[in-house]
């Protein structure tokens, strides 16, 4: 157990170093950082001075060590387009993304589990067929189309919900939250559904499959023989045993929810890290791209590490990788 944990931890550190090398190479070699800082008519001598002040004339390994040391302290350099430290920009945007990702995950869990349980218990009803159609849509439709469809329905046609932004936010320390105001909550609804729909589909299918399997087992038959109520059997015994894999998958998927927030945030102009990243890609703002890559990798690697370690405690059956489309 300890050996496994250690091996996985070392692997995780290896991955982070590899990602660090990629981020550093992007930062250093994709475009000349000096050109982004000076203007076109800056004399060569001044350019050299800037180069020196940035430490760009040091040997590459030294530069890499410095970049890594800075990154470890959340210093990612200065954004080309905003002329502000990248870490400030990211910190400012992070609450929006995390709140959205958390709401999407909660939405996916609640509805995914409900729909999954229902379609496992009542296999041939009309509602189950509808759920299955919804799940086909959730898998086939690109995220941004779902978002546009929701905006057309609920903002343009019905005018119920805002189509962009976070609404009013309340500042608590450095964290900003939209959960405490009515407009903030209304603004959260459509982005959360858009972002969570794929996860919901995944969880629904998983719960359905697990429930069907569990309901066939001997201990459920035995529970029936003991004369327990259907409710107690279904929810007390069967559902409880399907929840472990569901929570594991939801946990593993949290990282990709954050990554896929890029698309949802663009559709709804949600002021989070994803929108910042897309703008950085459009405007070739390398420091932000590199920093975002590092941040997301850190989240991914941490989640994977925790889940992998939990596997050895809980259940190894689920160890398949789940890929999703955009």
């Amino acid at each position, binding site marked *: 157990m300890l050996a496994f944990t250690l091996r996985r931890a070392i692997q995780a550190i290896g*991955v982070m170093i*590899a*990602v660090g090398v990629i981020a550093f190479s*992007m930062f250093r070699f*994709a*475009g000349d950082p000096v050109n982004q800082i000076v203007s076109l008519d800056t004399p060569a001598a001044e350019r050299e001075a800037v180069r020196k002040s940035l430490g760009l004339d040091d040997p590459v390994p030294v530069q890499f060590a410095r970049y890594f040391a800075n990154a470890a302290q959340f210093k990612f350099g200065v954004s080309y387009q905003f002329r502000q430290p990248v870490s400030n920009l990211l910190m400012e945007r992070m609450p929006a993304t995390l709140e959205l990702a958390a709401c999407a995950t909660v939405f996916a869990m609640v509805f995914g589990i409900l729909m999954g349980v229902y379609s496992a218990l009542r296999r041939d009803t009309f509602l189950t067929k509808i759920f299955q159609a919804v799940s*086909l849509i959730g*898998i*086939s*439709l*690109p*995220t*941004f*189309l779902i978002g*546009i*469809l929701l*905006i*057309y329905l609920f*903002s*343009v046609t019905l005018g119920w919900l805002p*189509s962009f932004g976070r609404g009013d936010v309340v500042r608590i320390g450095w964290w900003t939250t939209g959960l405490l105001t009515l407009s903030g909550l209304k603004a959260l609804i459509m982005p959360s559904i858009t972002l969570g729909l794929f996860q919901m589909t995944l969880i629904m299918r998983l719960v359905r499959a697990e429930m069907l399997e569990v309901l066939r087992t001997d201990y459920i038959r035995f529970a029936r023989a003991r004369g327990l109520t259907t409710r107690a059997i279904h929810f007390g015994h069967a559902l409880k045993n399907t929840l472990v894999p569901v929570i594991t998958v939801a946990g593993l998927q949290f*990282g*990709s929810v954050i*990554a*896929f927030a*890029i*698309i949802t945030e*663009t*559709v709804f102009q949600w002021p989070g890290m994803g929108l910042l*990243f*897309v703008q*950085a*890609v*459009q*405007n*070739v703002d*390398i420091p932000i*791209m590199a920093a975002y*890559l590092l941040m*997301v*990798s850190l989240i*991914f*690697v941490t989640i*994977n590490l925790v889940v992998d370690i939990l596997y050895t405690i809980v259940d190894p059956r689920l160890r398949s*990788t789940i*890929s*999703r*489309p*955009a």
Partner: protein
Amino acid sequence: MSDAVVPHRVEPSAPRARSGTGWLKRALDSDIFYSFRRSRMTMVAAAVTLLFFLLAVFASQLAVQNPFDPAQLQLMNSRISPLWTADGQSPFLLGTDEQGRDVFSAILYGLRISLVVGVLGVIFAAALGITLGLIAGYVGGAVDGLIMRIADVQLTFPAILIALLVNGVAKSVFGNRLDAMSTLAVLVVAIGLSFWVQYARTVRGSVMVEKNKDYVAAAQLIGLPAPKIIFRHVLPNTMGPILVIATINLALAVITEATLSFLGAGMPDTMPSLGTLIRIGNNYLFAGEWWIVAFPGIALAGLILAINLLGDWLRDALNPKLR
């Protein structure tokens, strides 16, 4: 496994039935074709997919204008609603956009670009993944370890993130003013680099099984060079699963291209793909001009759904164990 789809499965000693009728008869008698005829949904999906490909191929014949040619666009014709609505005008079947571009023509040309990027992206991903998988499986040892480690790491990151990064880096290296054709090439590379892992893993797995079989030992004994054994003898026996992955990946590649273009990191407005058209149309949603975004969206969704259904069927048909 059927001869119709994987002709390489023919026994090496058997004469290859290339004459038209024999080949066709075998194809029509095969399990695959039987399961195809049994599933109405699959036949519809195949027909729809074929229709989309034909529309893309004959785009220039079917379109009423070339939407990429600014000289053919007239601002007089802008924002016309679809033909069946009160303000509809012939010949603009699905209406026109802000620049007087016929939406139907734009969809045909955009479909062509989406499919070209998707197909080339899949081919690139497959070529890269198959090569690396063959090497990893056949050579083994440290090479295998390195390739599979990279694959493991990459698999933890969503493809769209990798594609966006590749795109951003390419923009920064080549400058922000890439012309449309180079953007297309960058998209193909970005998609290829995001999807190669699955091929590599699958091929590696099959190669590990195949390389211990007698025919490989025989090929080694008669002194064939390793590359020849790998590509001529081992590769054909790993193609079944590859076909399934490629079909499902085509849908994913089309989605990825559309998403990149929608995010403004893909095809430019001057040479729009379906994703670009949706991004442009999205700006007019609030003005009530729903048709500019709706029809490209429906086209994209239909294309993806059809390819996905086809891929699902192919997976089940080629792998009886999953039925």
